[in-house]
């Protein structure tokens, strides 16, 4: 019994060394070309004309205004969508009512609708040809080609983000805890803040982070409703397009580098939140429940 233990494991499907190396190799090359290279070239192009041009672009009043507007849109759209997401998740997971499945489908609609279609749709509500447009115009309220339009379009595009993270999780957690709290005399708000919220905080934050990234980066829907007025209704993504078509590639990439940095931070936050268990419960639509074969470890 003096020979050292050799940790051998029987091969699983796809464990042949050659196949394994080949597949890893192919996947890594494709990831490098399709995902990593675009990220790298943003940095390279941003500094192509030197540090001075980069700094000039970033500090240019138009760029600063675009950043301010992007942040403003996020500051309004994200909290509103978060409140909506919590309300929707509470209504859907804690109660039974008619039409619940239909409501779930409607909430998810913005995911499958092209942002351009969303922008056009808003045109027909608040534009001069739209349902409320002429009336709003009479009172001198400007929604389209102004900041409110940008915020509304961003809200449409990101409406499902928080709700989608919370609903599957709260569904899985059930109602027992809340029912126990209520039976002990806690009020609804008290129950939510001291029983529900601690259990969903990471998933909530996860949804908020993803929602924020999308609001800050939204392009299609916003470009329809913004009117692209330089220094007034240009968000950062629109500003990038403007510079790019003005043949100021270095400026466009410099502005893009800010958004790319936000994207990288979003991913880091996402990974950190996933370590806390967020994003792990998925909707049954994408996760088949194998009734007969729930995996359990043998003794």
């Amino acid at each position: 019994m003096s020979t050292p233990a050799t940790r051998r494991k029987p091969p699983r499907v796809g464990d042949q060394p050659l196949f394994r190396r080949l597949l890893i190799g192919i996947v890594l090359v494709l990831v490098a070309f399709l995902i990593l290279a675009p990220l790298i070239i943003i940095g390279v192009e941003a500094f192509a004309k030197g540090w001075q041009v980069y700094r000039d672009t970033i500090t240019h009043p138009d760029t600063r205004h675009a950043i301010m507007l992007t942040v403003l849109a996020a500051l309004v759209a994200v909290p509103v969508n978060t409140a909506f997401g919590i309300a929707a998740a509470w209504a859907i997971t804690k109660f039974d009512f008619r039409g619940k499945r239909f409501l779930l489908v409607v909430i998810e609609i913005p995911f499958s609708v092209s942002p351009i279609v969303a922008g056009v749709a808003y045109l027909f509500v608040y534009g001069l040809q739209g349902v409320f447009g002429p009336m709003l115009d009479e009172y001198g309220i400007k929604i389209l080609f102004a900041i409110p339009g940008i915020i509304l379009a961003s809200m449409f595009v990101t409406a499902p983000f928080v709700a989608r993270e919370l609903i599957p999780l709260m569904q899985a957690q059930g109602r027992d805890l809340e029912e126990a709290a209520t039976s002990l005399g806690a009020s609804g708000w008290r129950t939510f803040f001291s029983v529900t919220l601690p259990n969903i905080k990471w998933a909530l934050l996860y949804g908020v982070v993803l929602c924020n990234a999308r609001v800050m980066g939204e392009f299609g829907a916003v470009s329809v409703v913004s009117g692209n007025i330089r220094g007034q209704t240009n968000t950062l993504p629109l500003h990038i397009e403007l510079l790019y078509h003005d043949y100021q590639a270095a400026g466009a990439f410099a502005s893009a580098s800010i958004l790319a940095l936000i994207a990288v931070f979003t991913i880091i936050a996402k990974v950190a939140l996933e370590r806390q268990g967020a994003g792990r419960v998925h909707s049954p639509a994408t996760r088949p429940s194998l009734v007969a074969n729930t995996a359990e470890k043998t003794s």
Partner: protein
Amino acid sequence: MKIRLDHVVKTFETFRAVKDVSLEIESGELVALLGPSGSGKTTILRMVAGLEYADQGHIHFGDQDATDIPVRDRGVGFVFQHYALFPHMTVAENIAFGMKVSKVKREKAAIDARVADLLRLVRLEGLGDRFPAQISGGQRQRVALARALAVDPKVLLLDEPFGALDANVRRDLRRWLREIHSELGITTLFVTHDQEEALDLADRVVILKDGQIVQQGTPEEVCRDPKSSFVMKFLGDANVLAAEVRDGKAYASGAAIEVSGMADGKAELYARPADLDWSLQGPGIPASITRVLDRADGRRVLATAETGEHLEFDVEPERLVKAGDGGFVTLRRAKVFALA
């Protein structure tokens, strides 16, 4: 097919699951690996199957060294604890799977006929086109067995075959598995933590503790002659009394029995409830009855000895005993093990 394990060792991370186990299973034998959880019984079974590889030692199938043969070439039938039926295939497709993927090509008609035979064997005629989610736990268990038998395995391995089932279904399936075994005569090894299941079903019981075999033998041998206090306790209820061995006799709470060949010193006396009796006269252990539990097949008496030790024993239904009675607990037989 005869199976031989030769000084097999398996370590997970830092945990030594199986420590130097040697075991022989005769061709056609039905053997139970019995032990509490963590005793390494499932690991041994999985090593025999080729689902784990031994770190050290060898596993022989007949004259062949099977240690490094992967599971797909080992020719074993494995029934998983939770059956592992393919949920997207019907019962018949599950049973046919092994024949369809086999290197030996078979006619579709031949496969269908074999599936029908197996469905008959496991008494599931007519359920062939159901999905696993649509049948009961006991039925799934039998599908898993039929699927394993379909490939004509040299050895049949079952991991806690009845663990996930109700007590009634369990008893029925146990008898039925025994019948199938006598019909097919296939070498069978199964894992259980349920001593009753092992004793009812197996030709031979191998008792494991902490990755080692502590005793093996026929159900009669291990029941009548447990070699250690662990086996004694693991196989069934037992009263334990502190005892003292002196000059070939063990003394406990006022009773004494012959123990030839034991060294003097502290020991423990083990007696099953059926090994004790109640009498109004000595000799015996002076005690008083604290409670009587009435059961369908007799009366269980709880008593406290004068030394303060608690005793449980069974008397026949007609016996008039009640709480508060004083008397003597007599020993019909008992086992004494020296304290290590």
